[in-house]
């Protein structure tokens, strides 16, 4: 089903509680993907993936794939709030 853009711009906010920096915030178009927001947020928080773990974005508790569009998550809302999650190794 084609996505209907309800807003021209959507505010995204990414929180990461162990950073010295405040949340990452940006206004994006609805067709912007989670992957783009993730990359930008990682740059903001100065973190990188390595062999031990990867970073992902969670929205409404669930991990979201890189190809998911912000518009599909926003629905009627003008904002989308993510948590940056460090997926770490298990023992």
């Amino acid at each position, binding site marked *: 089903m084609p996505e209907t853009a309800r807003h021209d711009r959507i505010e995204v906010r990414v929180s*990461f*509680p*162990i*950073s*010295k920096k405040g949340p990452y915030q940006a206004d994006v178009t609805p067709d912007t993907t989670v992957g783009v927001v993730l990359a930008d947020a990682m740059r903001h928080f100065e973190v990188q993936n*390595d062999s*031990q*773990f990867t970073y992902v974005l*969670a929205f409404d*508790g*669930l*991990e979201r794939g890189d190809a998911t569009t912000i518009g599909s998550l926003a629905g009627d809302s003008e904002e989308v709030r993510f*948590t940056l*999650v*460090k997926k*770490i*190794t*298990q*023992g």
Partner: protein
Amino acid sequence: MPIDDESFLNLESDEGAVAASLAEHRGELTRDDHISDGGDRAVYWITFTPKGVTSQKYIARYEWFAYPYEPPSIKFAPAVRGSLVVSSAWPMMNGYRPTSFDICRPMCREGFTTHPEWRQGSTAWPTEGNPFLWVVEIMQFHFDNDYQGRSA
């Protein structure tokens, strides 16, 4: 175990954000010394609920030692102030070991004890920002994305 005043004040400063996050995810936080006189101000009882399985509640006991400098001990109990050696109090999720009553991940004292190599580099315990909120969010993420049911 007694906690120093600096750690206690640091925990008090950070616990509000933890409580707010838990409330958004159907959970709650209770500090042990708020339950009754003589309770331990270094211990928190945190209730987690897996997304989509709201009938299941899990009670995790966090014990802090030097906050934010050291990770907490984390164990599950069937009830607040309940036994810490009941396997059915544990969820089935990767790295959570009901038979050992510990979590083997670089986010708690037990994990770093099992794997001392995690204390260095990118897996080291974080000490900036709000590590209490971070470890609670990590556990909630596990409940929401990796939950496979209750241990027997």
